[in-house]
């Protein structure tokens, strides 16, 4: 599904990715973790073609993504910051994204799932942060693409919406999709993820299941295991 080889990216003098090698066959939830500034978002954005790598290659479905934009038809992306054109109504925004993608979509179901009906005719700049995030989720989940990339999906959500989101993610996994998720909430990761991809200093430092991580670090719980992996000498 995703094949990344020797990926390098520098921003000015700051080397963010230094030789990432990653192959994901497909199916399942992959959590991309790592300390702040370890290159998680840069990695995701490289996959989406928003960041142009200095070196290395990325292919999705055996096709290189370089100078190619059509592959994004098969990716749903949830950006970290939900910020939309303020003068558009929620309804119009949904229509716009549908219009751009020209695919069948399930927005009605999602709108009622997140109880967004009363907001459909409101302008986006009148919405609260959490409500914007819900709109963001609707936009990301309404298409049926085989690859989903979620950047901090839980930010700003109330508990009810959080439960709904988890159900939604599980449903997508059941359909055999590949989900890449970044999150700083370890409880969420522990509950959802099948595999952990741990980035440190621009490389993949660890990849494996939760159990493997706990065995490797000899820590009984996940949060401590994650904390220990960054400093293996203390583990």
């Amino acid at each position, binding site marked *: 599904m995703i094949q990344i080889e020797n990926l390098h990216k520098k921003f000015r003098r700051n080397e963010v990715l230094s030789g990432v090698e990653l192959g994901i066959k497909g199916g399942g939830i992959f959590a991309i973790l790592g300390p702040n500034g370890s290159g998680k978002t840069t990695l995701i954005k490289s996959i989406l*073609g928003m960041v142009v790598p200095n070196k290395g290659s990325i292919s999705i479905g055996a096709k290189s993504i370089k100078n190619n934009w059509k*592959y*994004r038809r098969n990716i749903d992306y949830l*950006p970290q910051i939900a*910020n939309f054109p*303020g*003068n558009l109504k929620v309804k*119009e925004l949904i229509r716009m994204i549908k219009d751009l993608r020209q695919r069948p979509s399930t927005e009605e179901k999602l709108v009622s799932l997140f109880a967004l009906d009363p907001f459909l005719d409101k302008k986006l700049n009148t919405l609260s942060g959490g409500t914007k995030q819900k709109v963001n989720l609707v936009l990301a989940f309404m298409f049926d693409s085989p690859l989903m990339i979620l950047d901090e999906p839980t930010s700003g959500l109330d508990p009810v919406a959080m439960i709904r989101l988890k159900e939604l993610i599980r449903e997508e996994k059941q359909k055999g999709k590949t989900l890449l998720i970044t999150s700083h909430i370890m409880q969420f990761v522990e509950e959802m993820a099948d595999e952990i991809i741990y980035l440190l200093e621009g490389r993949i430092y660890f990849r494996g299941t939760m159990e493997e991580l706990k065995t490797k670090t000899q820590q009984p719980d996940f949060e401590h295991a994650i904390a220990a992996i960054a400093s293996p000498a203390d583990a």
Partner: protein
Amino acid sequence: MLKILKYSFYDLIRSRWSYAYFLFYLALGFVLLFLNNDVSKAVITLMNVIIVLVPLIGTIFGVMYYYNSKEFTELLLAQPVKRSSIFLGQYLGVAGSLLLSLVLGLGIPFVLYGIFRSDAIFDFSLLLVTGAFLTLIFTAFSFNIALSNENRIKGFGYAILLWLFLAVIYDGLFLMSLIIFEEYPLDTFSLLATMTNPIDLSRTLILLKLDISALLGYTGAVFKQFFGTNLGFLVSMSMLVLWTVLPIWRLVYRSKKKDF
């Protein structure tokens, strides 16, 4: 591209700023025409306003729109759309909504006044055409500046500086060089210097069409000889087109290489 254009246009024509801009021209047009009762004079006053204000608003609006829609642009970049379509669409959306305010705001009072029955129709259309070019040029400048500067304070600063330079400082330098080098023949120099500033170019075009070039003395005569002819008119129009196309081309080129 058309879809992006459509939506950013919709978004913008509903913003308060577009209305304010539109109402400003509407009020200005009515006041000038109905208190003055002289179309030619109204066109000259309007020219003076447009020449300064259109570039300023185009620059500020473009920079503001770009920075405000940054996160949304990121969402669009993740959609199956070409990069050039996104930025061209947004650019044309901003320029288009500004143009609409300009054309409607000035058009309505002039039509009510009876511009179609007057012989000033050509002057008036020239005013609108140069206003349109200035909008396109300066919005493109502002998008270029915003695209090259992550820091919005810097971006705003450069945009204002660019406007200040082309609208005010350039003329000062031009004038000073004319005084310093007055011993030398300056015809070609002043023609070239006018060509390389879209604001000056527009101003000269309108002034000469209004047949008040006598005010400009000897230089005016030279200018009249050049700009007054069909060739001069064509050359200056193509300069304006070039001024429009170059920044748009850079916008597309730059957007392809940028990291978001």
